[in-house]
């Protein structure tokens, strides 16, 4: 009988310790989980597939040669478009990046093309899409046209120059 009572005392003390140690951990520490998320987006890139070509023409007393984004060529003034052996087309760029993102297109104001010391100016750049593009499935073709200003009796020659087209995510 004495032994039993001692065992019960021990049990009671053990129970007391569990209460002391266990209670603060269970009732006073509370934890909540949260999600952390981040989206790494594919960098946007642009590469040239085709140059802007105004083709061949005779200047006469001057005017302009216009290439539309569709690659159609037209003229103003007295410029006479020459078709024999002439290739004209809009510039074409491949824009790649993250699917279904939109991007802003920045065209140059003007560009100069030269042949020896002679120059002509390309202006009124246009693009399709214009202003804002959309990377459906992560890619889009960007077409760029422009207007070439031809002076009266512009010196004959093969004129070349370069310009930059920029794209950036909106």
């Amino acid at each position: 009988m004495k032994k039993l009572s001692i065992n019960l005392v021990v049990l009671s003390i053990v129970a007391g310790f569990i209460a002391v140690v266990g209670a603060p951990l269970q009732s006073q520490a509370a934890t909540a989980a949260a999600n952390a998320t981040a989206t790494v987006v594919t960098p946007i890139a642009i590469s040239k597939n085709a140059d802007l070509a105004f083709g061949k023409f005779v200047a006469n007393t001057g005017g302009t040669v216009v290439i539309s984004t569709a690659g159609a060529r037209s003229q103003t003034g007295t410029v006479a478009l020459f078709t024999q052996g002439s290739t004209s087309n809009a510039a074409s760029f491949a824009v790649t990046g993250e699917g279904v993102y939109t991007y802003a297109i920045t065209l140059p104001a003007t560009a100069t093309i030269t042949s020896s010391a002679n120059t002509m100016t390309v202006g009124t750049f246009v693009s399709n899409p214009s202003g804002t593009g959309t990377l459906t499935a992560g890619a889009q073709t960007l077409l760029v046209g422009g207007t070439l200003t031809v002076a009266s009796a512009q010196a004959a020659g093969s004129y070349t120059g370069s310009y930059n087209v920029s794209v950036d995510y909106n």
Partner: protein
Amino acid sequence: MTRCTTVAGLVLLFLLPSSSWAGISSVAKNSNLQFAKFVSLSSSGSVIVSAAGARSFSGGLVLLNGGTVTAASYTMTGSGNSNYTIILPANNTVVISSGGHTLTLTNFTCSVPLTGKLGSGKTSMTFTVGATATVTANATPGAYSGTFNVTAN
């Protein structure tokens, strides 16, 4: 004698938990931590969401708009004006992943002091948590996610 000690033990059992109840009893999450969208460039960088929910960056990154940036938000509840201690994750212990790729979170920050009192007559307090996502150079594009724990007692 036997009855006496058993009763004493039971009294101990009931008294101790109730006397130690004065503290934080629960923490509930209100919103997740969102770094939103960015481009990783050819050098490493980091994206920081402050505890106030403001996003900034350093290094080879470009932050993009069009996503939702939020600090994580929690409400802890306890007895009136009880003391509290908030435990944030340690540095480099939380990763978020996309496929087999990971970003590591460091420098967790909190909108309130990590120890304090709920305030006179108050039984709850809402706080927000920010962190820094370390982004390796040319990090693989994707939607990264993971979880982390915040504890209050």
